[in-house]
């Protein structure tokens, strides 16, 4: 019985005692989780945009993050000013969206979902190969200062301790919030946004009222490319721009399962739950498992959601009619 009480103490008491004995540190953990969560949410947002409009699960979203950041950095490294490199990169993502719609999606209209998924896996390989062919496999430094993004940090003295805020993290959070708001307005207030929602609700009905499916798909892939670019800039500034970023992006899958594949608010809230949850779990419960729990926490959480609420928190209820 002694081991049982010791185990219960380690799981149920010690972590909370640690949290309340160092509240400044707890705030720091929550802030770090919030920033990670925002970045997960941005990747998930890219998935949601495409899934809503075309029903395609875009496996290439992760590599799009890397590709966009690589294009930006590489163009700047050729001597192009940062702002112009940013404009050119946005143009490249636009051309990519049109290219994907013309070459891949247009030929696969009305095909089974699995075929479209396989097509995006193929797209992943093409983008990965093209990225390595044109820009090399070496990691590159993000042009944080050149883009006018803030560097350095500020301290907040609280609870007899400090919470450190990296300015780039604050900027990431701010930009992500602005981007989500902009997308929400775009979806609800603009003509194209309403067309996107119409396509998402019913392809056939949208076609019958004259909405161009091809145009909508190109727009939505372009929007997803812009989200990927912002994510690549922010994550690249936190570490560097390398192909390893693609792997992190896959964590957005867990976020999608939590938030639902079709919900923008779900992507945000799911991202925050995963981000904050994994940091708290790693810091306070991780030592019980020998550390490294962050690698699987999100997926276990997603598995639990799949068991009890497969459509996610905000996803549309899955109804199969016989």
């Amino acid at each position, binding site marked *: 019985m002694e081991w049982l009480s010791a185990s219960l103490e380690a799981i149920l008491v010690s972590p909370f005692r640690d949290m309340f004995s160092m509240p400044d540190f707890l705030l720091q953990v929550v802030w770090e989780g919030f*920033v990670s969560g925002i970045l997960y949410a941005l990747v998930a947002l890219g998935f949601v945009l495409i899934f809503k409009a075309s029903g395609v699960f875009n496996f290439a979203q992760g590599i799009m993050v890397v590709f966009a950041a690589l294009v930006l950095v590489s163009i700047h490294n050729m001597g192009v000013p940062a702002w112009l490199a940013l404009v050119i990169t946005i143009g490249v993502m636009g051309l990519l969206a049109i290219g994907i719609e013309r070459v891949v999606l247009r030929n696969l209209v009305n095909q089974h979902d699995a075929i479209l998924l396989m097509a995006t896996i193929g797209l992943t390989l093409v983008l990965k190969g093209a990225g*390595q062919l044109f820009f090399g*496999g070496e990691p590159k430094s993000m042009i944080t200062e050149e883009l006018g993004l803030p560097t350095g940090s500020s301290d907040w003295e609280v609870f007899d301790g400090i919470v450190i805020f990296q300015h780039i993290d604050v900027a990431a959070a701010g930009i992500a919030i602005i981007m989500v708001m902009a997308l929400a307005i775009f979806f609800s207030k603009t003509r194209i946004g309403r067309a996107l929602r119409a396509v998402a609700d019913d392809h056939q009905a949208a076609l019958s009222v004259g909405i161009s499916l091809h145009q909508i798909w190109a727009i939505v892939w372009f929007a997803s490319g812009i989200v990927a670019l912002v994510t690549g800039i922010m994550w690249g500034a936190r570490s560097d721009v*390398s*192909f390893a970023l693609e792997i992190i992006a896959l964590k957005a899958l867990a976020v999608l399962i939590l938030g639902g594949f079709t919900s923008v608010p779900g992507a945000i809230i799911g991202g925050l739950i995963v981000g904050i949850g994994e940091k708290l779990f790693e810091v306070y419960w991780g030592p019980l498992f020998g*550390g490294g729990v962050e690698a699987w926490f999100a997926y276990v959480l997603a598995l639990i959601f799949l068991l009890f609420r497969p459509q996610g928190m905000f996803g549309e209820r899955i109804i199969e009619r016989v």
Partner: protein
Amino acid sequence: MKSKILISASALFVAAACAMPVVQAEDSLYLPSMSYRTGPFAGGGTPFADGYADYLNMLNERDGGIGGVKVVVEECETAYNTQKGVECYEATKGNGALAYSPLSTGITLALIPKAPVDQIPVFSMGYGLSAAAIGEKFPWTFVYPTTYWSQMSSILKYIDSNGGVAGKKIGFIYLDAGYGKEPLPLLEQLSESMGFELAKYPVGGKEMQNQSAQWLNVRKDRPDWMIMWGWGAMNPTAIKEAVKIRYPLDRFIGNWWAGSHNDLQAVGKNGKGYLAANFSGIGQQYPAVQDILKHVVDKGNSKVASREAVGNVLYNRGLFNAVVLAEAITVAQAKTGKAVINGADMRYGLENINLTAERLAELGLADFTGPLKGSCEDHEGAGAVFIQQWNGEDWEKVTDLIEPMTDVVRPLLEDAAAKYVSDKPDWEGQTCG
């Protein structure tokens, strides 16, 4: 008509294929290069592969090869993936491969049992299985000039000479894979015998660029020193995270895979003070490197990203890998009297290598590294490393070579070697002396 055209085209294709040059083991020295220029670790694999190929190509251009025989370097892309590495091995071993440098602990572990069967030595330079240093148990594997375990003991000696290690807390952040976990048994044992507390921070392969939780734990635990066994994107991320929590970088030491130019260029001035172990020279000042510039790079025959990248830490590490293999070929040629050797001859060459300070100077690499002498018993060699420090723009060597704690490490290596072969009844060792 169509079938005639098809047959004619096929015949032409076959004729053209037969006319293409193929690797001829009979008139060349074939050294496959297991490289990774793609994938998440490409930042480390690319400069290493460049240095390796450029040195051997320089020998071809300057000296006409080794002993008058051209060296054929064939790259095979592994993407740092064990399965792909083994596929590379199987695809190239039949071409008369003299040795393999897998450039990955995972691939090394997979190739160690294959080496005696195929009679092709494995040379995992300072990485791979530390126990392979014991020549009696591993006749076909070489880990010159040191092992992860010896390196760890040298790092601990450095810490000990900078304020002592007893009673201190030492954090170990590592890639949660075979490579990162390799020194753990030694570290755990030394923590008891040397009296320091060990705090472990594993970083999953998928979390290399997402380490804030590990560094929050570092902030909470407040270790006196941090040691890192990182690779690829993990390294700059870890250093940036250390800066974020204001961990003193002159108390943060990476191993020799966590101290390249690529790692620190992404961090820049913020990384000033960070330390790392190394065993190969830095810079272009060595005559051999100058010859590479003259005979290979300036003629446009190198894949190196820029002329300035020649002489960087990992470029020179790849170069050193090639130097050891080239020297082993020279030793084997002298012993056998043959210009074209095979894998078994190469094994002899590696086992009897003797890179003295004079010989290094002859090769145009004076003071590039410490002397290296192999033997039947000792497949590790010198075992020493030096410590380098990032000054904000470049690496500076800040210590002389630090000898490993051989008295502590060697018995542990012997135990580990005995344990490795204990469940392999058909394993063939060798008797020395």
